[in-house]
């Protein structure tokens, strides 16, 4: 599904050039549930942006579903995003003057689907996520968990092949975080590839594969079977601060 070969990306600000991704290689199969971890500055958000065709890269190759994602203009990129990828953000990014249903229906608008049909579809998705009664509420009338569920519905409505989630639980409490992760798991069970960026070990531990980035390259990939040992490492990390207290 996703093939990345020798990917380089630098950000140039004025005279400074920041080399963020330094020859990254990565392969993600269809239907995988992957998390990307790494300290801040490791390049995990940059990688996610490139995966989501929100940003371009300098060198190397990125193929999505067998197509090379290169030299695309904005319109083509927008169309591919619309067709292939669903986004979930840490801060939900719902449009404040649209109600839940209209927010969910928005990707369909850019697909050119009629108003009546897309609102109907949006209602179906909201119902699936248990938000039917909240369909006509504005985002500021919803709780954090509800907002993220609306955002998930929005990501799913265009029937994408991949869900990209940037810190989907970052703004939620543990209880709600687990609910959201459960939801993502169900989505994954339906065959959609799910990739999340997170810095929380317990969240990462719920995925099948953890990709740890460090200084722009992959430090290690922890597969499903190794998760037990990862769990131990995670616990170690959790316990560490307590020594300092």
């Amino acid at each position: 599904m996703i093939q990345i070969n020798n990917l380089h990306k630098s950000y140039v600000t004025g005279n400074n050039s920041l080399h963020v991704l330094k020859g990254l290689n990565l392969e993600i199969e269809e239907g995988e549930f992957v998390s990307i971890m790494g300290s801040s500055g490791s390049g995990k958000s940059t990688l996610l942006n490139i995966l989501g065709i929100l940003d371009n890269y300098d060198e190397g190759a990125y193929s999505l579903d067998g197509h090379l994602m290169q030299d695309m203009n904005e319109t083509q990129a927008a169309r591919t995003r619309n067709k292939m990828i669903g986004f979930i953000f840490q801060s939900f990014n719902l449009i404040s003057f649209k109600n839940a249903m209209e927010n969910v229906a928005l990707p369909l608008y850019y697909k050119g689907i009629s108003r009546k049909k897309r609102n109907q579809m949006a209602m179906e998705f909201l119902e699936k996520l248990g938000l039917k009664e909240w369909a006509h509420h504005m985002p500021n009338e919803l709780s954090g968990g509800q907002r993220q569920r609306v955002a998930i519905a929005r990501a799913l409505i265009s029937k994408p092949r991949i869900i990209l989630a940037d810190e989907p639980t970052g703004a939620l409490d543990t209880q709600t975080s687990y609910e959201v992760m459960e939801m993502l798991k169900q989505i994954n069970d339906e065959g959609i590839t799910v990739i999340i960026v997170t810095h929380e070990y317990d969240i990462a531990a719920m995925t099948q594969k953890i990709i740890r980035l460090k200084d722009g390259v992959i430090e290690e990939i922890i597969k499903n079977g190794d998760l037990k040992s990862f769990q131990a490492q995670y616990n170690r990390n959790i316990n560490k601060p307590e020594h300092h207290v």
Partner: protein
Amino acid sequence: MFDIDVWQEIFSTIRKNKLRTFLTGFSVAWGIFMLMILLGSGNGLQNGVKQEFASNAVNAMWIWTGETSMPYKGMKTGRPIRFNNQDYTFLTNKVKGLDEVSSRFYLPGDTNYAYGNEYGSFTTVTCHPALRDVENIKLSKGRFINHKDITDYRKSIVIGKDIAKALFKEEDPIGKYIKVNDVPFKVVGVSHDPDNRNDRTAYMPVSTAQRIFNGGNRVHSFAVTTKMVTSAKQAEAITKEVREALAQRHKFNPDDKRAMGAFNMLTEYLRTMKIFQGIKIFVWIIGIGTLIAGIVGVSNIMLILVKERTREIGVRKALGASPRSVIGLILMESILITTVAGYIGLTLGVGIMEGVNYVLEQMSASGGGDGIFFRNPTVDFGTAISATLILVLSGAIAGYIPAKKAANVKPIEALRDE
């Protein structure tokens, strides 16, 4: 692009920023309002002056004689110049720049008019049929002097409205005989002047007048229409042609303004119209300047708006919005604000000018309003249409830079959590 969602989104942002939208809209409305007031006033002034010209044909020209003030070919100054009927034939047939010619023979002393027991003293103008066109004489009854009157030396007369009223009261004057200096003339028409200036004037055939009042072939002045030309220079050339031709016939220096006087209305008219053209351009410049201030205001607001909506635009782009749809969103909003506000300004401006027009018309209808150099201060349909087009265009210009900026919003930067 014109579907309900775009509008819904535009309206929801406008609703969120009522005051700001109002203030921006106001600057545009004010710009177009001022433009309409200025244009209307310019038109009013122009129409007022045109009205002054309207009492005669704009291409009218008067030629009269005097005494020479320059020696010419050995002849002394102070020599009287006299036109005659041959000059009339000459002007009619030989001078290319002229269209129609009417000659006038001044009747000596007062002319007394009498009908039955009623009598009065009025102005008599002797003329050819062409005078009707030269001086825009309006008839309320009957006909004007015609060629048959001239060739047959008929005693026909056209009397002004006030003469008819004085002599005939309620009676119909057409076909009746009145006495002009004791000579009976048949009334063939009644004239009236919108400016009430020539209502105490009567018109009779110049040939008849010459014969009855001992004029011989003497002509005192000519009233003519020149060929319609478009520049004051060309009109001036006609005056020169006439002057040189008559100077040659009567042997005086063509530069001698005292020997022969001439007034070419067309020269004045074209000059005046040129001034108004200048005024009009000036008005447009001021108006458009005001409008540009409004446009800059809208553009500024839209820039702020784009800045505020960066995240939203980023989300839209992440969800698959093409740059075109983002540009459309910003552009439509800007066009909507300018068009609606501009239209309000347009309506108010035109409304006020129509109101002024109504008051002016009431004033002139009630007999007042004499000497008001201001008439019909309204803006014509074409101008209103072009103003509307300017508005839509300016909305597009105002929205262009912000829309461009919006289209360049990078979703990553927009979505980055601060």
